[in-house]
């Protein structure tokens, strides 16, 4: 690891100020993406601004039709939260599949979406549930937030403060883990909103990162059942092709995982 200066911020404003002062600063939340990259010497921030202890950035609340999870809330808290489990059990389940217990006790949903790894789990939930990303400057719809591999709509220094999820009528996530990394080789999140709209998001499969599947959405909107997807053709165009999954295999997994998710959602 290269040398760096560590700061612990106690408020969102202080974090932003510290960030602006550093020549090449980075926010540090759970550190489960950033620190491994630094250890491999692939990133060398001048300053690390630790946001994990900022009180305003940790917590979960549900009000009426919305579940809000603050950005620096660790996965473990989300997966075990009674509020999340009753509002959107599929989200609690998705989070319980991230990494291992050590990762879940440290890693955060804010860090995950800021990083936007094309195989990360959380982006699928945000996109399918039509969530809103709140930052210290604005609100961004999930559909506008994810911009391809490791890229988001965040400006330099912009800090995610929370994610708010409209509570769906039904939702489920089905993940086929990458054998080595256990990220999603392909993960599919299906959601049916209270107004009857259907959104399906796929992670791990596309070369462009998390994406929606309009063909499956249409099929499910017409008939919310696993068999409705039987007739859908999923093209392997633009899908990732690597050691652990050809693009044809991923195309197959999109269908199979979507069907499993629909069955699980009931």
């Amino acid at each position, binding site marked *: *690891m*290269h*040398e760096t200066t560590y700061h612990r911020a106690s408020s969102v404003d202080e974090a932003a100020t510290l960030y602006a002062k550093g020549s090449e600063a980075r926010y540090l939340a759970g550190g489960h993406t950033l620190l491994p990259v630094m250890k*491999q*010497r692939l990133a060398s921030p001048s300053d690390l601004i630790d946001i994990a202890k900022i009180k305003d950035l940790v917590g979960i609340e549900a009000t009426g039709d919305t579940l809000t999870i603050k950005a620096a809330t660790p996965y473990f808290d989300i997966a075990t939260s009674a509020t999340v489990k009753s509002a959107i059990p599929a989200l609690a389940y998705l989070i319980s599949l991230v990494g291992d217990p050590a990762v879940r006790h440290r890693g955060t949903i804010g860090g995950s979406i800021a990083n936007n790894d094309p195989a990360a789990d959380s982006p699928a939930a945000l996109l399918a549930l039509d969530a809103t990303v709140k930052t210290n400057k604005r609100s961004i719809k999930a559909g506008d937030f994810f911009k391809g591999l490791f890229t988001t709509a965040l400006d330099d220094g912009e800090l995610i403060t929370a994610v708010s999820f409209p509570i769906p009528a039904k939702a489920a996530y089905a993940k*086929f883990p990458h*054998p*080595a*990394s256990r990220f999603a*080789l392909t993960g599919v999140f299906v959601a049916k909103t209270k107004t009857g709209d259907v959104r399906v998001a796929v992670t791990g499969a596309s070369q462009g990162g998390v994406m929606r599947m309009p063909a499956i959405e249409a099929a499910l909107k017409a008939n919310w059942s696993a068999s409705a997807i039987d007739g859908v053709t999923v093209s392997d165009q633009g899908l990732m092709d690597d*050691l*652990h*999954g*050809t693009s044809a*295999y991923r195309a*197959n*997994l999109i269908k*199979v995982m979507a069907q499993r998710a629909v069955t699980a959602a009931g």
Partner: protein
Amino acid sequence: MSVEGIGASVVRKEDKRFITGKGRYVDDVRIHGMTYAAFVRSPHAHAKVKRIDPSEALKMPGVVAVLNGQQLADDKVGNLICGWMIHSKDGSPMKMGAWPAMAPETVRFVGQAVAVVLAESRNQARDAADAVVVDYEELPVVADVRAAIAPGAPQLHPEAPGNIIYDWVIGDEAATDAAIKSAAHLVSIDLINNRLVPNAMEPRAAVADYDAAEDHYTLYTTSQNPHVARLVLSAFYNIAPEHKLRVIAPDVGGGFGSKIYIYPEEMVALWASKKIQRPVKWTADRTESFLTDAHGRDHITHAQMAFDKDHKIVGLKVKTHANLGAYMSLFSSSVPTYLYATLLSGQYVIPNIHAEVISVYTNTTPVDAYRGAGRPEASFLVERLMETAARQLKVNPAELRRKNFITQFPYQTPVIMAYDVGDFNASLDAAKKAIDYDGFPARKAKAKQEGKLRGIGLSCYIEACGIAPSKAVGSLGAGVGLWESAEVRVNPVGTIEILTGSHSHGQGHETTFAQVVADRLGISIGQVAIVHGDTDKVQFGMGTYGSRSGPVGLTAIVKAMEKVEAKAKKIAAHQLEASEGDIVIEDGQFKVAGTDKAIALPMVALAAYTAHNLPDGMEPGLKESAFYDPTNFTFPAGTHICEVEVDPNTGKTTFINFVAADDFGRMINPMIVEGQVHGGLAQGIGQALLEGTVYDDNGQLVTASFMDYTMPRADDLPSFNVSHTTTLCPGNPLGIKGCGEAGAIGSSAAVINAITDAIGNDNLVMPATPVRVWNAVHAKQAAE
């Protein structure tokens, strides 16, 4: 049997320090004034080193020195060696290219060291290593065995035309060809035995400390055989004569073979420590482990097995290409030859066997012994052939094996090995019973109704351990003898220290070795300490690999104990005024048989050291040593059966059951044996399902981290059903065969046999990842 003696599942003495974080590993060693080494490594798989410019690095904070391969050569430090001579079929010796510890001219695999930076801290050394400028002229790369032997392939070493190291044969080719020609049935197979990265939990490390006052070196290193390391460093690498070099291998966190060898980094650390007159520490990071620890396996094989009309095997012909990587590692030459082809008879009567092995250089990390070393490759081949034969002959796979089992012992195979004892029917029966083999068709039918593909696969393996009779291996080309030594020191108060040349790096010797001693004397294991891993304490030893510590290392201890006991009995008899022949040892007492006269071990020991009242002419003291050279290999064998379910929609394999019925001869501590089996099975299953090592055409290791290389994790594995059938090994007094590698040797074939049974397609390459299984399922469906 006492409660802590032979056969007792005593909790491991060493575990307290390991699981409370109190183990002392090489990286825990800190010496005043210590510097840190970071290697500058080649990013290219094949290139000329045109220029190494350390000037920027030398200006950086904390940097003490930057050293390179030319300086090593100038100091006449020797090249790395391969210690086992193999001759090609034309009689010519193997073609070995030079392997300098840091490359002065040419690099031949990604990660090969070209220079080393020494600095005050690890990070300073790493930063400076990044700043060393190396100009390379890239050369054409060949990472694949078949490409390497093709005409016009890039040439790695001028010594080895066509990249061929040797073309070696064993067995009677004419007789085998004749058997195949006249056979009623012929079964052919093409297999890849996939390359594996050992991934010991503790990466390699070295702390080298040159003492100018004494002109003496100390090396703390992650070694499975510190005495062999000292011998090689001294006799071949010219670092220092043996009496000026102490090698200590303290707690070592796993080796699996990868820590047998003497690597460039450890010897550079020693040499550098004298050059800069400061201690030097180097600890590999995980990427360096992936790139530079000797890999395992990597065979491509074509084989034919011939059967007569009654389904008896009449011949086996094998041709294997073995990838040894860019350089010949210490024992690399022996692994695909004498540790592989000599086991091709498996558990079967095969009257004619012929094998040809062509070992090849490629621009990849060197390959050497890895848990099982050659024997997993042999067992995988024979057991894939048996299963395939049963399918083609449409007979029950268990019965085809049974029909061909060797049942008369000793049995001389056509490929050198003489099996001493075994009962292959017993382990087959035990495994079949444990998995309810006869109930399988019903289970398969039920799974089919649920849309799942069920399969069952057998593997009846045999292997050779306890390496090895020195004279025999000498005649086959080994550069060393493979005996073991032991010294028993009884202290004046009756506690005992056992000095052994075996080295424990996870095997539990501190417990099992103490159990054998405790058992003989009727004392507790708490009174026995095991000393190992330090060339200043233990005079010499050959170390631990090839499941040799039980059959060879423990036997040396028994031989030394016999001498100690004989002398102690003389002292006891003298003290008790009895006849030596009447003395028996029980419960820590030397008793006069049939009387109540007795003297306790501490009093005997004290008498030996006070020497006030010893028999006339007896030397004081109670300490004996022994060197034990085995008379034969030992032959652990058994049956593994695996039952799996495949999800045709995703290609995912789920274990239903995995049973291992093994014959290891006598077990000292069944719990530790079971642990060894579990670990071995995890590695064998890892090879079959998970672990794939992939190089691209540029010789870059694509799977150089745990993000891409799938190490087996607990939830990848079934709950193992392990049992034993026992025939005692006649070759050593304890009847031990060895258990360290069997799990890794037998299990891969059982897994692949099960999956191919489930999907009805034999065309499946290891590791059988979900995508590969899914493709195989679809290929089958397309064919139908």
